[in-house]
């Protein structure tokens, strides 16, 4: 089982693994190929096929040409919206999560484990339980249908994850280190900047990758709290499929799907190791 012999059973294993891998890659391959086929070509055949002529123009149309809900600017504005929500919300939730995780693990106070317990419950609470309250809060502070509103939501809700990640990492730092620094007169933030933060890059990379992926891919809040030109790209993709239901434009739509998925796919390719670490850290609490 764990030795390297070339028995027929090993050939069978390679065969099975390759077949499953091909099945897993097929959807991606189909979209990539479709993004390079003209709409007429797809309409005549099926969604599955090799491009007869490379229709690079699909990407131009998807990026800045076609129309979603009476505005014809492609998905460029929605990609920008997603970036303007995801980048600040990732930075804020990671920074605050690092401070909160540090406070919970190394700067104990009365009742901290209760507070921390409630925060981690946020990992499980269905989003639907928070939809109405957020609607009221965003309306009352005038942030409904704004990107800033989504940044606020993702920052606060992201704290459940980021605090958990950072806390689990920081509990391994020896308390003596903190105690010695406190005796030397260093305060909470001084210790944070001088001792904790320099030790943090590994967990901060995991947290940033995880938050970026999550927030970029989020759909429910995007579609509930924004409309029209303010929507993130996930919501725009749904609006687009409704818009092209009458006149199929699957080539352009495929290109839009690829563009929308590109940021998180690139992050996954570049930081796959950290992505998996976040995945398993988020799973085994």
């Amino acid at each position: 089982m764990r030795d390297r012999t070339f028995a027929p059973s090993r050939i069978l294993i390679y065969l099975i693994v390759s077949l499953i891998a091909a099945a897993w890659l097929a959807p991606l391959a189909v979209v990539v190929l479709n993004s390079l086929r003209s709409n007429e070509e797809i309409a005549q055949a099926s969604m599955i096929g090799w491009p007869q002529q490379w229709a690079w123009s699909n990407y131009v149309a998807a990026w800045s040409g076609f129309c979603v809900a009476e505005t014809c600017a492609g998905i460029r504005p929605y990609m920008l919206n997603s970036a303007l929500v995801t980048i600040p919300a990732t930075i804020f939730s990671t920074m605050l999560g690092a401070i909160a995780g540090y406070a919970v693990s190394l700067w104990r106070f009365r009742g901290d484990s209760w507070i921390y317990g409630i925060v981690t419950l946020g990992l499980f609470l269905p989003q639907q339980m928070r939809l109405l309250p957020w609607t009221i809060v965003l309306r009352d502070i005038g942030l409904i249908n704004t990107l800033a509103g989504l940044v606020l939501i993702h920052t606060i809700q992201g704290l459940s994850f980021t605090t958990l990640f950072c806390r689990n990492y920081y509990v391994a730092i020896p308390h003596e280190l903190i105690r010695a620094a406190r005796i030397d007169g260093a305060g909470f933030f001084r210790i944070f900047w001088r001792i904790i933060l320099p030790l943090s890059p590994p967990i901060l990379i995991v947290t940033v990758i995880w938050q970026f992926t999550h927030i970029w891919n989020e759909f429910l809040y995007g579609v509930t709290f924004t409309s029209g030109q303010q929507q993130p790209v996930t919501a725009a993709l749904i609006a687009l499929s409704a818009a092209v239901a009458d006149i199929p434009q699957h080539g352009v739509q495929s290109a839009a799907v690829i563009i929308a998925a590109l940021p998180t796919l690139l992050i996954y390719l570049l930081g796959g190791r950290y992505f998996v670490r976040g995945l398993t850290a988020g799973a085994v609490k």
Partner: protein
Amino acid sequence: MIWVPLLLSAAHLVSFSLWTIWISFTPSTLVPVSGWVGLRNYTAVTASRNWQIAFDNLLLFGSAFVLLSAVTGLILAILLDQRIRGENLLRSIFLYPLAVSFVVTGTVWSWLLNPGLGIQKLVHDLGWTSFKFDWLIDRDMAIWTIVIAAIWQSSGFAMALFLAGLRSVDADLIKAAQIDGAGPVRMYRRIILPTLWPITITVVVIQLQFAISAFDLVRALTNGGPGIATQLPALVVYDLMFQRSLLGRGAAAAVLMLLILLAVLLPYAAWRYLQRRRAAHA
């Protein structure tokens, strides 16, 4: 200052949850109003066909998806554990769907499974014209298209956890069994797989949690259709709150979702607690 982020997070979780629970007992429709209608919203939701179908679908989708994705994940993990070449590449291939949004996944699978565009059309064009694969538009089978897409999307997650478990099995134990002449099948059945129980339970709970709150994938793949054949609780909540403006009922449906989730999480929490106590006493 130090506790602001923690308190903010805890406070919003508590107050938002309590507020939604309160709304579920009020006669709120278009806007939240005070008042008390007891369980009326709950009985209205549970009596509706929409919710009943959604609940039945959740039972079917939840159990099928959790079972099949765990089995797929376990098989993938065992295959990758055979010291094969290109393990890193293969692992990346099985995990990449997790990096992509459910909206994208749902859209792509809606094309592949569309009888007029996807797999069925391809097979017809190849000459096998009697081939039929139209689950997407078949009321009885449509829910299975969501199972397929969800398995594709997230069995890589089960694989990652199982693989970590397989790799942490005591090497001495394996060597001892090898010396005793245990073959690979016996080895997995008797020694390796039994150690994976804790991970299996974690995988099942997390996947169930995903199934209960599934929204994006269904919205993009079938949008609850054909008709309401693939309705799920999360879609019912959205529909009640934002399309029919029945806030009280929407809140009641959200609380029902929470209760379903608790039915999964509380036994899990109790099990974790017992495990930890047993570990402490050992």
